């Protein structure tokens, strides 16, 4: 008689340590798993729901300023240090991990207009309404020492913006003209004017470090090359741009925040029309900052919200707001791509998570794998109506919600009118102008 006995190698099913996962032998034959799609759909739905449950982006509020926060600066080499300048000329240095102010100094009389940390992280510059540029040490003065700037430059006019070169001791200011300064000299090495009397912001390109962009009050964005005696080009838009920011990973893209509630991403080589128009804000956009990965940017608006846009997406993926947050004046994305810092009118600096539902801190490998998997599931099923509905739902303050609706109505009405005009006029006389082309008036060479 034949006796059949099951014999298995214990290596196949016994785990080495009790910390290991139980090994589950599994047959992956698809014919044995007929309901894989529906099962994954359920998982995706659950993941989406959980994401919304865990989406708590607001981390902390740093209070201490006695006036509205007008400018922020990230430390270039230290993640936990933040600089903020307020409208009363006070500069505060914050320790983000402890969430406390570590140093306060009266930098200027009047507004602190701009602030930037030197590339090496040893000193920082401020400009103010008192027509001075001041350089300060990062370290607080020792006991008994007086708080004194390392260097002070007296300018002829008010400076409204400031940025530092990424690799050299050169910085740029803007006011009535755009000046490029050598740190060692008290007069600018280059001074650019192009028929306008005031600039609101200037930024160095972090990749092609000799290029600059600035926003002027004649509704234009002007590009410069530090090495050239003359500016490069400017594009005039229908409304004024408030700030401009270069993509830190893609040399020729920059985005500007505009008074007409939109943000525009341009390719600096082709200024005649923006690459993307980012819409969603319902009031002027005051500031923006790119994420260090260059994939997204965050914008601060007069409508008291912060929005996160994908760099090539027309609409925001996230909106942050709190009841107490007033007009957001300045915003920064932290250098580790994890946090967002916003300074607003009501004297507070707020710390947000860049990904609202992300778990902070170190993840266990299995935890990370689970997170990755659920992320992929959400991506895969993002077009399914139920999942889309849940994933895209955001709460908005009543005012903003109504304003959004109002604007939608207005836009629709305008479109309708345009359509009617086109319908009742000779073909070809009223051309179709795309949204991108609408906002550019002209490009000046």
């Amino acid at each position, binding site marked *: 008689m034949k006796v059949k006995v099951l014999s298995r190698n214990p290596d196949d099913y016994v785990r080495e340590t009790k910390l290991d996962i139980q090994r589950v032998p599994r047959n992956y034959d698809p014919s044995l798993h007929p309901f894989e799609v529906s099962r994954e759909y359920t998982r995706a739905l659950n993941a989406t729901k959980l994401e919304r449950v865990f989406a708590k982006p607001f981390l902390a509020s740093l209070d201490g300023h006695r006036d509205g926060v007008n400018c922020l600066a990230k430390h270039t080499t230290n993640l936990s240090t933040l600089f903020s300048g307020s409208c009363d000329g006070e500069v505060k240095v914050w320790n983000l991990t402890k969430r406390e102010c570590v140093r306060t100094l009266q930098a200027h009389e009047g507004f602190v207009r701009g602030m930037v940390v030197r590339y090496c992280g040893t000193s920082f510059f401020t400009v103010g309404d008192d027509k001075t540029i001041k350089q300060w040490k990062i370290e607080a003065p020792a006991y008994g020492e007086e708080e004194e700037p390392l260097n002070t430059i007296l300018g002829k006019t008010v400076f409204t913006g400031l940025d530092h070169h990424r690799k050299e001791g050169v910085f740029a200011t803007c006011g009535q003209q755009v000046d490029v300064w050598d740190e060692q000299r008290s007069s600018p090495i280059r001074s650019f004017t192009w028929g306008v009397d005031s600039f609101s912001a200037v930024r160095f390109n*972090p990749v092609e470090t000799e290029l600059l962009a600035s926003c002027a009050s004649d509704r234009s964005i002007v590009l410069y090359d530090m090495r050239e005696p*003359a500016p490069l080009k400017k594009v005039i838009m229908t409304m004024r741009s408030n700030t401009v920011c270069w993509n830190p990973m893609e040399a*020729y893209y920059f985005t500007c925040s505009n008074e007409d509630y939109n943000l525009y991403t341009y390719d*600096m*080589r082709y200024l005649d029309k923006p690459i993307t128009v980012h819409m969603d804000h319902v009031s002027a956009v005051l500031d923006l900052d790119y994420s260090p990965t260059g994939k997204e940017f965050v914008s601060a608006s007069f409508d008291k919200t912060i929005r996160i846009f994908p760099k090539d997406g027309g609409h925001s993926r996230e909106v942050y707001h709190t009841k107490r947050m007033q007009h957001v004046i300045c915003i920064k994305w932290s250098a*580790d791509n994890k946090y967002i810092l916003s300074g607003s009118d009501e004297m507070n600096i707020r710390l947000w998570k860049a990904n609202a539902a992300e778990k902070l801190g170190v993840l266990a490998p299995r935890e990370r794998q689970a997170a990755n998997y659920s992320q*992929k599931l959400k991506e895969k099923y993002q*077009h399914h109506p139920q999942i889309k509905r849940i994933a895209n739902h955001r709460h908005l303050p009543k005012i903003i919600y109504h304003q959004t609706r109002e604007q939608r109505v207005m836009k629709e009405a305008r479109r309708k009118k345009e359509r009617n005009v086109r319908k009742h006029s000779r073909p070809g006389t009223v051309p179709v102008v795309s949204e991108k082309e609408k906002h550019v008036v002209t490009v000046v060479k």
Partner: protein
Amino acid sequence: MAKVSKKKVSRKSVRKSSTVTEKIAEVKPDVVYDDGDDEFLSKEDGNISSEEEEEEEDGKDGKDERKRQKLLEAISALGGKRQKKLGERSEAAVLMSEFTVNAEGEGDKIDLSDLIGSMEKTSAVPAKTKKQLKNLQHTNKTIECPLSKQESERIQRDVAFRKASTEVTRWKDIIKQNQRAEQLVFPLDKEPTGPRPMERMVTGWKAQTPLEQEIFALLSANKQPINDPILTPAEEASMRAMSLEEAKIRRAELQKARALQSYYEAKTRRERKIKSKKYHKVQNKAKRKEFLKKFEEMVKTDPAAALEELSKIELARMQERMSLKHQNSGKWAKSKVIMAKYDEGARKAMQQQLEVNKELTQKLVTSLNKEEEEEEAVDEEVLPDFVNDAEQRLDSSNPWMRGKLSEDPAEKELSENMDLITEGPGAVGNPAEEEEDEEEVVETEEETLLREFDSRRKWRQAHEEMEEKEPQVPEQEEEEGPQVPEQEEEEGPQVPEQEEEEGPQAPEQEEEEEPQVPEQEEEEEPQVPEQEEEEEPQVPEQEEEELSAIGEGIADSSGEAEMPEGAADSCHTNPSAQLEEGLLRIRTLEDMELLSQQEPAPDEAPAEPPATDKPPSVTPQADKTRKRKRGIELKEVLTKETKVIKVPLAPTIEDTEDTEDKLDQRGLIKEAFAGDDVVSDFLKDKRKQEDAAKPQVVDLTLPGWGEWGGTNLKPSRNKRRRFRIKTAPPPPRRDQCLPSIIVSEKRNSSISLHQVNSLPFPFQNHAQFESTIRAPLGRTWNTEQTVRKISKPKVVTQLGAIIEPMSREELMKDKKQVSTGSTSHVDSWKRKR
């Protein structure tokens, strides 16, 4: 300015031209960038000639004083009378030269002709310049006025912008690459993980723990390398030991060997590539011949080596026998089988293949074993061909089983098949062979009896199995019932009554079998071997049907019905078909034909006398033939016979043992579910659904319109016909051909809530989108590695690491890659040329 230039003109014409261009350059930025020689000179043409006017112009807007002075000079010059020269500035005077030094002939006017005159004398000036200067004398153009400030600035900006944009465009590749990347890990300039070269590790590291220190001490004591672990001192010494000449000689040797090898390789490769079969045939033949010759020689000279060779040959033969080569079981053979019916060539080819097999499995008779079996060999020569034939026929019956009844049934089954084969030709066979078979005749009679029993038993088993497998086929059973009472007794309680009412599903196939079944039953007692032969193939046939019926279910049974018919036909048409050993099944006519071809094959091939087997025989010479017959012919017993291609359905006789168990289980199940008829319920349900799905006729007739209305009045038929709307028949149901399935084609609103109702953006068509949805991501359906790969996030950032903006080094890296790529490309291009 003009003055200066004039002075320079007076000294050096060539130099002057350059200064002029400088001036132009200041005015026109365009020229700065394109400094081609031609343009350079053409500009120059106008300038030099208009030198004087220019000078005067400049003077005008200069100081009036000087102008007046000049005018005076000019007037005085016109007068022809030389004025007194201006003195040096030594004291206050009204008329005083601006310059301290007075030159000879200062007030004189200089013509271009003067200069040219001097130029011709100097040989240093090139002829081209001379010519150009001469041309200048005649031209009379004015210089263009400089651009306005705005204009020039604009040009400057434009140029600068273009420069900047080209500079920025260099990043395009990297940006594209990053956008397309499946995963980006930030910070970008991270040190590559993974093993680093040992040298780098060791240099910046010191032994700290006592163990490490010990190890290092040991290493240094034994002169092992620590920092540069390429060669130990000993190795290096040995390297040094080989002298240059030695090395050279060695290298030459190696080179030669390599060259020879490569020649040989090339040659063999070329030979192998020759496709001609004939060539290879001839080649092989020649080889064989040569080998035989050699072998012959070897036998004489070196018997030990010859023996070895012989064993090798034997081994080859064994391998051939073991392998499936030349057994007509490959793809080629299968294709030939299909062709064989129509194609004479294919038949022949198969035949040939078989011959080759025979040939290769032949035993080699050599002079070595001749010594042992000389007598045999002699006899062999004497014996006629038919002896071999007979022998083969006889050997085909299993010699082990002769005259023994106490055997395993399984073995008997095997043997019985063999016997059957022998019987056919046995009747026809040659008389000589019958004489030799006298002994066996008795035994075969016994065997036939046994065989009969066995076959009957098998048939019954098969029949039972069939019955229990087809509970929905009561018709057949009803009819069979009276004819096969024993079977009914066995199954009596298990056959449910309701089955009788079921009609549509019953396959016709059973009806066809009917006539055969009773026939068999009737003939049970008087067994005739010829009949047996006919029956024998049918039994497995039936079994097969059953098995296939199990596999394919009720639905396919109707389609299957043709199969046994064909098989039965083939049996009847070829009654003399020689069955082969093993579990051979004849299914189609083609199979039959194939068999008829293979039949003569064994006759043609002469069987070889066993060279090795030495059964204890008292009178080897006299009994030789007998002995051969009785002895175990390994070839007949073990060799895998050339077989006809098997059809995937392979019912095995071994299964019959299990069937009883199955029967029990099935019986149990039947008993348990005796009350409910699931199948018919299902069918009713399906029919109901089908009816519901059929379009209804819509009757729109209204009484009274165009006719009299009122009670008890019906609209006319004509009218009714006119207003009756028949909708077009719906497309065929998807489950039309699937008898055991109901496919609902209605849209479910509760599901549609979760379905995507429009094609999402990046997808081009529905199929694309569906395919992405269909592929599962989870580890329930994928292996660990796959899951990890699939669920890789697009952007990975490190906790607490500062992500610096892209730096220029990235560009450099990219460029390096590109340049290496391009150089390699160029190289390949060069090589092509």
